Each structure stands twice: as structure tokens, then as C-alpha cells.
């Protein structure tokens, strides 16, 4: 650190040396402008695809997310468009950056947040986003509590999301139709402005339940038209839910015994029709409760010695104890036995959400 010898000429400039060195490579990078391809050149799209690593992301999307066909199709389309845009740019054909603001609608637990996270990564790989991080917010993070509080708050969130994806969960809460003096309108206004002006800096993804989002868009027509992609997340079928359950148990280091697999399917069949069903989230909760019951069963069994198989296997009893089986057939169900009865009377109400 050089001490300024002369007050009128501070030597701050000297400190630049380190940073300037850091800057020079960036300039050199810019120097060789990518040469435009001649009109008769041929580009191998497969190679461009490999380079961008799209297949990896789409592949993991396919492997880790069960079902969701319409969503996957749309994501593949967007990926293809961005790739083609990149190749076109190499020929010197440039179009305006496509608008990629999206709206995810679907019932609870259909994977909206998970897909948004993947989207950020995918868009980063395709060179649309510079950083590819996801900033997940709700109404609380955007709307202030008093006059003049909302704008700085919203802007701060937007600045944090720049270069990545701004994911607004339960976006319909932003606007409250019944309260004219609600500050949510201000947040929406700022969002709209940024969505229009900083299109290449960030992607806004709104998420919410279908009916509520329809009301939201009806009250904010400007928002509706600025969002190019409205993606609907369908409910899962029982088969898909069973598959999800298996992926989840695997991730937790458990597995269903063959009998339990069959019981789990029956459980899902019943659960789907019941109130408060939240797709994959309900499956996760069911798996969590099966874990609890399994642990309790192992502790209460007469023989206190266990092996790895016992520790990692979920048996039919762990599932049959669920209130779901009890509710469908009045009275205790055949397989559930005493444990099921005690759980039903004990904390059954809390358990089955």
C-alpha cells in the first residue's frame, strides 16, 4: 500500500495495477471477433448440440423428472430455438433475443419449482443467461409494508436475480383484487418494466395454481402479454406417482419390498381421490411417514437384532398403517392390525396431509 506523498495527488491510481492486469485478458478475449461464416458454409448441428451440453441437461431432466410430457416438450423446443439462434448468429443472421419469461401453472406438487431450477441451468448452458442462478421469492420479498418501501425492495430482488432466473412462487398473491391500496400493484409495475427493458439480463418465471393465476392475469393484462410461455403442469397418474415414490425412497437409501410396492400402489389409488392431495409432495410425505413407522416397527419387534436389509426395506405393514386405508373401508382394514388402529386414533389427523 503506497502512502500518498503529496495530498494534492493521491496515489490511488497505483492500486489499479492488480485490477488492470485482471482486466487485460478480458480485452484480449474480445479482440478476436468471431469471424462470420460464409453463406455457403455448413454447420453440424449435432456438434453444436454436444458443445452446448443440452443433451446432458435434457437427459437428466428426463431421468429425474417423471412424466410432465408437455413441460419437457416445451423445454426441448426452447433449447432447440436458442441453439438454432446461436448457429444463425454465426452466419451473421441476428434476430432479437426471444422473450423467455414464463408462467408455470399446475396443482400443488407437480414440480414447478424443480423445473424452474433446471430451467436456470439449461438457459445458462445455452448462453441465454450469464450466471444461471435461481432467486426464488414470494410476495413477502417483493412487496413492502409501508408507502415507499415496495420499490426499493422489488428493485433489490431484481438486481440480485440479474443474470439468472427470478422465480416468483404463488405469484397471484402479488395482486390483491379486494384491496385497492395494496402495494402489490407497485411491485408488478416495476416487474413489468424490467421484464421489458432488461430482457437479456433476467428471465422471470411466475408460478401458481391455474385458477388463481387466471384471476391474476385477468387483473393484470400487461403481465399476460409479456409472458411468452404459459406452461401447464399436468397432474401425475398413479403409475407416475409410484415411480416418483420409488425414486424418492432410493434417494433416501430405502427400498420397497415387492409386497410393499403393490401396497404402495393401492395406497396411491386411494390417496389420489382424497382431499388435500398434492401430487409428488403427498408422495414424499407418505414416504416420510413410512420411514417413521418402519423405524418404530424395528424397535418394537421381539428380536432386537437387525441387518442392512431390514434397515433399508419398507414392508407392507409400514404402509398399511396409514389412515388412507382406514378411511376408505369403514372399520379396521384387514392387514393393518393394532399399529394402524393406534396411529389412527393417535395422530392420524395430523399425519395425512
Amino acid at each position, binding site marked *: 500500500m503506497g502512502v500518498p506523498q503529496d495530498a494534492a495527488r493521491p496515489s490511488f*491510481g497505483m492500486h489499479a495495477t492488480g485490477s488492470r492486469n485482471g*482486466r487485460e485478458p*478480458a480485452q484480449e478475449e474480445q479482440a478476436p471477433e468471431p469471424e462470420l461464416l460464409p453463406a455457403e458454409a455448413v454447420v453440424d448441428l449435432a456438434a453444436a448440440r454436444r458443445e452446448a451440453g443440452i443433451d446432458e441437461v435434457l437427459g437428466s431432466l428426463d431421468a429425474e423428472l417423471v412424466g410432465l410430457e408437455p413441460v419437457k416438450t416445451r423445454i426441448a423446443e426452447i433449447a432447440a430455438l436458442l441453439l438454432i439462434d446461436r448457429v444463425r448468429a454465426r452466419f451473421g443472421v441476428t434476430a432479437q433475443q426471444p422473450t423467455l419469461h414464463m408462467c408455470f401453472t399446475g396443482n400443488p406438487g407437480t414440480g414447478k419449482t424443480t423445473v424452474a431450477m433446471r430451467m436456470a441451468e439449461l438457459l445458462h448452458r445455452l448462453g441465454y443467461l*450469464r*450466471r444461471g442462478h435461481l432467486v426464488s421469492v414470494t410476495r413477502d420479498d417483493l412487496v413492502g409494508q409501508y408507502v415507499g418501501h415496495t420499490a426499493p425492495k422489488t428493485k433489490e430482488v431484481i*438486481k*440480485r436475480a440479474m443474470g*439468472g432466473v427470478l422465480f416468483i412462487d404463488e405469484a397471484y398473491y402479488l395482486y390483491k383484487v379486494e384491496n385497492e391500496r395494496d402495494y402489490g400493484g407497485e411491485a408488478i409495475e416495476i416487474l413489468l418494466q424490467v421484464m421489458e427493458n432488461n430482457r437479456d439480463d433476467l428471465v422471470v418465471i411466475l408460478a401458481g395454481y391455474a385458477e388463481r393465476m387466471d384471476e391474476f392475469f385477468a387483473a393484470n393484462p400487461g403481465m399476460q402479454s409479456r409472458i411468452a410461455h404459459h406452461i401447464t403442469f399436468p397432474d401425475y397418474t398413479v403409475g407416475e406417482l409410484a415411480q416418483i415414490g420409488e425414486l424418492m425412497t432410493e434417494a433416501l437409501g430405502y427400498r420397497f419390498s415387492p409386497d410393499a410396492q403393490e401396497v404402495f400402489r393401492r395406497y396411491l389409488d386411494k390417496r389420489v381421490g382424497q382431499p388435500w392431495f398434492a401430487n409428488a409432495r403427498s408422495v414424499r410425505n407418505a414416504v416420510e411417514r413410512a420411514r417413521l413407522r418402519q423405524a418404530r416397527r424395528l424397535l418394537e419387534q421381539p428380536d432386537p437384532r437387525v441387518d442392512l436389509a431390514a434397515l433399508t426395506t419398507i414392508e407392507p405393514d409400514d404402509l398399511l398403517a396409514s389412515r388412507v386405508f382406514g378411511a376408505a373401508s369403514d372399520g379396521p382394514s384387514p392387514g393393518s392390525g393394532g399399529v394402524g388402529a393406534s396411529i389412527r386414533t393417535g395422530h392420524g389427523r395430523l399425519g395425512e396431509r
Partner: protein
Amino acid sequence: MRITQGTFSYLPDLTDEEITAQIQYALGNGWPLSVEFTDDPHPRNTYWEMWGLPMFDLADAAGVLMEVNACRTAHPDKYVKLNAYDARLGRQTTALSFIVQRPAHEPGFRLERQETSDRQIRYTTHSYATERPTGDRYRQG
């Protein structure tokens, strides 16, 4: 007279791309940035006015540049600078600070001599800009 305060002040003014690269360098080091402005260019004036709060948890330079541009629009004839603060224990100081806008015309300074006891001379620098009231200092003509 071009005033030289902060990093890069002996270089030609940075372009927006160069500023973006510097912001990204600061963010890459985990330094939050803040925008400040003033119309009193005296080197000993360390109290510049803050343009909003310092910006924490940013990943991309676009957000900072947005604030810089907002400040430039609101104060087209003032000095605007960017500060990057290194909060690491043991440093805890401004790590990088550079001017991103200056008035079109900078009137400069004069040296004032004051004779005191025993024919000693005291020196001070006087900024011509401060002869006009604040808010009116860099008006052309």
C-alpha cells in the same frame, strides 16, 4: 482540469463494457458495490452522497450498472463513483473505488497561500467549482 481520484483515474474514462468488467471482477471477489455521487471534487471530500444502499448478494454486473445509469440520469453533471467493499476480517475496507462519471467541464483548483506568524506560509487547494452554490456548480456558460 481532470481530477484524479480513485483507481483508473489516470486512464481515459472507462466505457460501459469496461465498467461492467470491473464490476464483475469485484463481484467475483465477493465485494458488494455501492454508488456514490457528489459535486464537490476536493480530494479531501470523503463524504460523497450515497445513491441508494450498498448492493449485497448480487451475481451479475447488470444490476449494478442499472443503478449507475439511474444515478447518471438523475445527476448528469456530477461526479459518480463506484465503491467495492471487502468485508473480510483483516481487511474490512474499500477494495476498489473508481469514478464512472464526471462533469463535462471541470474548472479545477487553485493553490492558496496564507501568510501566518513568522512569515510561515500555509497552503491549501481551493476548488473553483465550489464558488457556485451546490446544485449549480457545473452549469455550462
